[in-house]
């Protein structure tokens, strides 16, 4: 079995299995932990509105904090939206998703996706440089931060090379691209990439608890 066949076959199968089982395991491991009852009299009832409010509100920093947080937030949005455009807009990705799930939708023009990939890669590099140079980020950063960045960056970089037919045979580049995406699937449940699902849980939890008190969210 050559590299491309492995990437299209068992590689894809097992990486997706690890992704789904791992995410389920991690979420279950968090949610099944003990929850203490709160006997205090709530100031505001309807915890779920607080949860939804915080999920929405924290999507952009408060005006008071914008001077220091707007730039990283903007760059963060740029690469997250960029990734979404690439994953769900490129024709080849839609074909792969259709072969796995039966779902499909119209693709975006390849020129637009290629441009987006360039912007995404540049914004990811900017975030990496910031992480390596900002004293606070340097102190906080660990293996997970750098490795998660790498496994998110590799599919973008190899995808751009495959589209441009640069550096090796197309089949080899395609195989490397698929394998890099599979590495991301495998790593996803174990590292900080899980924030893609935990963000709703975390914001929702704080929103519900703080709103109950009438506290600031």
């Amino acid at each position, binding site marked *: 079995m050559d590299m491309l066949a492995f990437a299209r076959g068992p590689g894809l199968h097992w990486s997706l299995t690890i992704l789904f089982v791992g995410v389920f395991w991690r979420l279950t491991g968090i949610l099944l932990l003990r929850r203490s009852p709160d006997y205090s009299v709530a100031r505001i009832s309807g915890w779920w509105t607080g949860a939804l409010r915080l999920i929405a509100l924290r999507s952009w920093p*408060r005006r008071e904090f914008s001077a220091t947080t707007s730039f990283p937030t903007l760059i963060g949005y740029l690469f997250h939206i960029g990734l979404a455009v690439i994953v769900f807009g490129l024709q080849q990705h839609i074909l792969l998703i259709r072969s796995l799930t039966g779902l499909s939708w119209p693709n975006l023009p390849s020129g637009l996706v290629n441009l987006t990939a360039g912007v995404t890669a540049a914004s990811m590099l900017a975030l990496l440089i910031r992480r390596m140079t900002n004293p606070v980020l340097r102190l906080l950063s660990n293996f997970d931060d750098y490795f998660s960045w790498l496994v998110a960056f590799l599919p973008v970089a190899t995808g751009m090379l495959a589209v441009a037919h640069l550096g090796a045979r197309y089949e080899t580049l395609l195989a490397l691209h698929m394998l890099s995406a599979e590495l991301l699937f495998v790593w996803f449940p174990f590292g900080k990439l899980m924030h893609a699902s935990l963000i709703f*849980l975390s914001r929702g939890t704080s929103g519900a608890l703080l709103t109950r008190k009438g506290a*600031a969210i």
Partner: protein
Amino acid sequence: MNTVEIDAVHPLMTEGPRLTVEPPATRYDKQGDLPDGERAARAVRQFVRDFGATAATWLESCIHCGQCAEACHYYVQTGEAKYTPVWKLEPFKQAYKREAGPFAPLYRALNLKRDVSAAELESWQELIYDSCTLCGRCSLICPMGIDLASLISQARHGMAKAGLVPHELWAVAERASVEGSPLGATPKVFRERCEWLADEHNVAIHVDLPEADILVSMSSIEIMKYPDSIVATARILNYLGTSWTFRTDGYEATNFGMLSGNADWQRESSLRLINAAVACKAKRLILPECGHAYGALRWQGANVYGQPLPFEVEHISEFLAREMQAGHLPVKPMPASVTFHDPCQISRRGGATQAPRVVLDKLGVDLHEMEMHGNLNWCCGGGGGVVTIHRADALRYKVFQLKMRQVEDTGASMLVSSCSNCRQTFDDGQAHFHWDKTMHSLLELVADHLIEPAASKENAA
């Protein structure tokens, strides 16, 4: 230990603008003689006990974006990365990953996260206690919505179990456990003070009535340093004609057990108040001008009690706002330009941000809000028990300068708050910087401006 012995072990510092214990001749910020391994093991066991679904959700969600630093007065004033709020939780996170997270067996088997050591916890003591007032401002900036202040409170539980609490904070908490008050306001002192104040000010101060609709509590800071608050409270409650009392078996609202991280002492302090309220069949417990007392009783009291409390709990500013809005407390207008300092645990963390503003509006003051006010206020730097810790003074003064700038920028001539701990932090800062601004009590302003009953009727006519 009895009250005489505790005075010898942890003598009070009675001189100076803030109340705490004397600085130790040689600092020893450890309790007991446990071997290091046992200290670390105790801390980790307690950390693990605290790791419920809520803490786990937050600890799993951090993306190390560092934005919380920008909301923390310690980082903003020093620029030192170690004061980044989430960094203060590092040993706590490490213990979580290794001992309680979904992949804990993997972390242990491959030693991906090492055991938390006593040396590590000792070096984190400054970050968990001296440089965190539990003000919760960082919780408002976190893009993942993590409530970091709650996590730091939990981390303090493990530190207390390990006997790794800063000397002074432990000392005042121990004093509270031994004699019912952290700062020398024993039941005898409190009763005598009430009797003296009643005589001196010609006001009825009810103590130990067997039954009353309202049980009123006090902060030992008020009892020992700002006793006019006792008089002001009595005047207002007498004016309203309510049935109220102080109780010597439950009057102390501060909870240094909670601030130190000692959950047993927290429970002890809370139960004294709860049991006193139950004993006198109170329908309402009024908490004094004290920030953390509000968090301890209003939001954690019922959970300590293990069931809903059979009475309402209200901060004095909420009580005043309600009575003034109902027209029961008419006041003379107060033509002063005022700025209000929000106590973090009452406003941002407690949800009672508007109450003092209602009171100030009824007083008719010209309110000049600070640029960051209400839910976004900057902490005075004295919360979380930090004001008691001598070695934290230099850092505390640095963050206090932020508050001074904010106050100066408003141009207001008068400074008001509704927390006696904030008030003593301001008094201490004022003395240190020879500042011309003095903090005033919201409660005392209301009492001082009450329209006397006869005048009130004339006014109404």
